[in-house]
């Protein structure tokens, strides 16, 4: 018996319904959502975009905007009803007891006031505390959130600290008033994986110390598994499943949750266990959500007539674990088999020795010249400063295979892609594609060469020209490169549309009529139109929802298998890369730290940076054991990269070398060659690296 069970919840939401007024009438964004949050508990709300999870949060703090309104249900904060109050009443009721942390820390930070002043202001305004005391308390709180050099940071401005540090400041600000409820809306989505890991550790820490109730909103199942005690899964405005975290991951009861689990990329140790199964169909728009039926029925593999004519209620299946489904007890997710055509058949991996690499890069360097502000440089005598975005990269990509390049922001992977494709000119080094030299920018390349090297972009919204139809845009490369005679262009476009699983009606559509996933598919069709030999994919799925992501990745895999195209896949997400790549290269500050076949990267021996990356990735399995290696400090600037090994400022394994790793500062590391093309860029000898334990030990998979 614990106190928690007898106390009343900090937040109780019952049958909440929120609608927005639009030109076409009222649109229901959230329907029938109920949950409780106790002290010192984190309740996660997880769902894809458009499911209404942020709307629920905004409803609680009354940030719905002029056209949003709560049309039903109740929100009780500390036993006080919030729905139906005036703004003034709400302000007194909430006061400083509810705090919110957003995805973008700059939404909460004032760029023109120092960090210290902003933090102290929270106390001087709300508590009438004297300035000196507020200042000291702020420093204490910054140290509490593990801010290095806290008193120094107090004097700085928001733009002078990194994203991860900004988010820590925002959390510190939120906690200064000791709120009873903390709402976090995707606070780590915009952060790099290693920074995210530190912030997540912090959130767990703080919950313990401050007893705050936390409402954590995210689309990332891995993050949920790491920080939440209870989870609510939302789909199309409704809460479809709710329960304790182990129960939800171990034994999901609702078909949507089960589907989500299947399409989230995992760090499985074999390629088969990493397969992704997308959910067929798409999320219904708010006006297409029937009231008298199960909203998931159109996409559900188990739907019956009853599901289409009767709306299920959220009912308790086991202790504390509920789902909105009639058939939860009868459905066994382990017995699920993918329907025909959902996933491509993976061809067996054939070992073809001596595949001539299609792309050969040796010691490639791309430096950007930094405009120097010194007076000397005006006269032409100043020291030239370079941003060393790509600093000595050598890789080879065998034909027909996929190379995944992984790294965090600032590692140079985008610059590498731009250099290969010709949008940037390299400063030094060699690059050869199909035997041709590609160290020249695209404007100087032969047309025959250009058409063999194409690219798929990250942002679906800007990948298509809004003024032209889909058919026209896919047709353009066909016409330009004369891939087919002009009479056959239209039929070739149709063929490409079908290859990306879009039907012919898309030919005449404009980009604004397409969804994110559809636009990405058109982008893929366009890239593949000229039948290139190599396609560069620059984070093609990071802007997409999880279930759409799975479908697009499967599509790329299928197209690669059918046409034998080689792919260079750039990503920051290690689990996505695992699924997709034959070979992986890990980048940091313009260097490659580890490269080799995919299985070799995800198992020891690791480069210390790879080890840290793998231990930082949030895994969607609360039972998985993961090593807890965290990197100190921030990524050094590419203007002044550290001497010797660029990782020496943060390497957690420096101690394995004599003298605490003095050699790491002085000398550039050698390449250590493990079996089969696996190489590691480190001073630590291979035998020691081989002693490392695997980072992730998953249960029964």
């Amino acid at each position, binding site marked *: 018996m614990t106190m928690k069970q007898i106390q009343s919840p900090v937040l109780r939401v019952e049958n909440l319904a929120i609608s927005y007024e639009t030109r076409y009438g009222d649109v229901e964004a959230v329907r029938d959502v109920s949950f409780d949050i106790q002290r010192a508990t984190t309740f996660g709300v997880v769902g*894809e*975009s*458009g499911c209404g999870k942020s709307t629920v949060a905004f409803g609680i703090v009354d940030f719905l905007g002029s056209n949003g309104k709560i049309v039903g249900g109740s929100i009780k904060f500390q036993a006080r009803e919030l729905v139906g109050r005036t703004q003034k009443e709400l302000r007194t009721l909430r006061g400083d007891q509810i705090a919110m942390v957003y995805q973008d820390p700059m939404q909460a930070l004032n760029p023109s006031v120092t960090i210290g002043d902003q933090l102290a202001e929270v106390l001087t305004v709300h508590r009438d505390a004297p300035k000196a005391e507020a200042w000291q308390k702020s420093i204490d709180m910054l140290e509490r959130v593990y801010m290095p050099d806290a008193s120094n940071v107090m004097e700085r401005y928001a733009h002078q600290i990194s994203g991860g540090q900004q988010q820590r400041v925002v959390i510190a600000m939120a906690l200064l008033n000791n709120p009873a409820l903390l709402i976090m809306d995707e606070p780590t*989505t915009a952060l790099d994986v290693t920074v995210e890991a530190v912030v997540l550790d912090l959130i767990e820490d703080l919950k313990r110390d401050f007893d705050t109730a936390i409402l954590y909103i995210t*689309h990332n199942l891995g993050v949920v598994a790491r920080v939440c005690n209870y989870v609510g899964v939302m789909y199309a405005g409704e809460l479809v499943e709710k329960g304790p975290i182990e129960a939800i991951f171990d034994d999901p009861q609702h078909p949507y949750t089960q589907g989500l689990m299947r399409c989230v990329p995992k760090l499985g140790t074999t390629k088969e266990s990493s397969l992704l199964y997308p959910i067929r169909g*798409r*999320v*219904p*728009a708010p006006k*297409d959500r029937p009231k008298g039926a199960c909203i998931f029925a159109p996409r559900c593999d188990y739907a019956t007539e009853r599901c289409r004519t009767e709306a299920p209620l959220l009912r308790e299946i086991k202790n504390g674990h509920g789902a909105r489904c009639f058939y939860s007890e009868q459905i066994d997710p382990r017995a699920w088999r993918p329907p025909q055509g959902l996933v491509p058949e993976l061809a067996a991996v054939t070992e073809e020795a001596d595949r001539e690499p299609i792309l050969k890069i040796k010691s490639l360097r791309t430096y950007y010249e930094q405009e120097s502000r010194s007076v000397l440089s005006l006269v032409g005598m100043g020291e030239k400063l370079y941003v060393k975005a790509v600093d000595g990269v050598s890789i080879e990509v065998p034909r027909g295979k996929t190379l995944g390049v992984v790294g965090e922001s600032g590692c140079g992977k985008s610059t590498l892609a731009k250099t290969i*494709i*010709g*949008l940037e000119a390299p400063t030094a080094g060699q690059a050869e594609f199909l035997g041709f030299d590609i160290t020249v920018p*695209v*404007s100087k*390349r032969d*047309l025959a060469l*250009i*058409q063999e*090297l*194409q*690219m798929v*972009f*990250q*942002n*679906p*919204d*800007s*990948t*298509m*020209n*809004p*003024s*032209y*139809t889909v058919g026209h*845009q896919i047709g*353009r*490369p066909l016409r*330009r*490169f004369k891939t087919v005679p002009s009479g056959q262009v239209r039929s070739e476009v149709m063929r490409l549309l079908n290859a990306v699983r879009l*039907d012919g*009606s898309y030919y*005449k*559509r*404009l980009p604004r*009529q*397409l*969804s*994110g*996933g*559809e636009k990405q598919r058109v*982008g893929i069709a*366009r890239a593949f139109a000229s039948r290139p030999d190599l396609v560069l994919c620059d984070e093609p799925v990071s*802007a*997409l*929802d*999880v*279930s*759409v992501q799975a479908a697009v990745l499967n599509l790329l895999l299928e197209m690669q298998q059918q046409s034998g195209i080689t792919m260079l896949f750039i990503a920051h997400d290690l689990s996505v890369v695992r699924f997709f790549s034959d070979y992986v290269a890990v980048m940091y500050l313009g260097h490659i730290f580890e490269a080799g076949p995919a299985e070799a990267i995800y198992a020891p021996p690791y480069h210390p940076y790879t080890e840290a990356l793998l231990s930082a990735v949030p895994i969607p399995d609360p039972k998985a054991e993961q090593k807890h290696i965290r990197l100190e400090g921030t990524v050094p600037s590419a203007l002044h990269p550290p001497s010797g090994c660029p990782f020496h400022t943060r390497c957690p394994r420096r101690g394995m070398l004599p003298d605490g790793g003095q050699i790491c500062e002085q000398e550039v590391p050698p390449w250590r060659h493990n079996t089969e093309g696996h190489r590691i860029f480190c001073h630590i000898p291979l035998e020691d690296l081989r002693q490392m334990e695997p980072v992730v030990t998953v249960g029964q998979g």
Partner: protein
Amino acid sequence: MALSEQTIPQKMVRPSRWRRIWERVSILFVSKTAMIGLVIVLFWVLVAILAPLLTPFSPTEQDYEAQNQGPSAKHFLGTDSLGRDIWSRLIYGARVVLVVLPVSENFWLPGGTALWGVVLGLLVGSTLGLMGGYLGGWVDEVVMRLLDAMMSFPVILLYMIIIAAVGASATNVVLAIAIVGTPGIARLVRSLALDIRTRDYIRAAEIRGENSLYIMFVEILPNARGPIIIDAMLRVGYAIFAMGTLGFLGLGLPPPSPDWGSMVAKGRQFILAGSPWAALWPSVAIASLVVGLNLFADGLREESLRYQ
């Protein structure tokens, strides 16, 4: 930020051409501002086109017995100092501005001086703006400095200098309007191009090896057309106003051409004498047309922003 798979249901096919045009046009009807503006502008355009049908008098016909009269049954807006019917002069004056451009004795183009001036300005200005915005580097520097130079002249002064230099004829007025309008248009297009060129579809075009001209005119320009069209409409208003001013200063179209500005100039002397009509009606005409165009442009801008 993740995007979802929400899309318009399958059965929507790209509508027919007439339907599309209607959809675009119907935006106008939603905005009251735009409608009012459109009504005023259409009024003048129609009146100008149908001019001969709307008045028995010629704009140059002088009647010494009916000088400086007020509105009456016969002269519906009154007469000027030379006995010419003001209404006729107004509607024929509208012709040159809005409807017909007399290039030479025997050759004319539809559209009017204001429209042609703005169109020419659009052509030149867009090209300069695209070049500066997309190509960047020293091209941008040169273009910007050129525009700076042009913009540093006060508008009316620039007009005066040009007309004084080349003489006052319809084509020269067109030229003047184009020259004066170019910097503003170029700046607008340049900033639009600067924004658009960061998009991935421009990268995609570059990767295809498309040349700069293609990218500028085929990829970038169509996406900038919204703001450009609205700006152009405003400029037609400015041009009309400028022509009025020029006419007032005596630099308008040579007499006896029914130039609104010069009508005001000539009628000015008689205001205090009790016949303000010769000055009043042309002023009202200029004002109404400019206001109408502004309202129309504003209404469109509001609607296009809301539509997004």
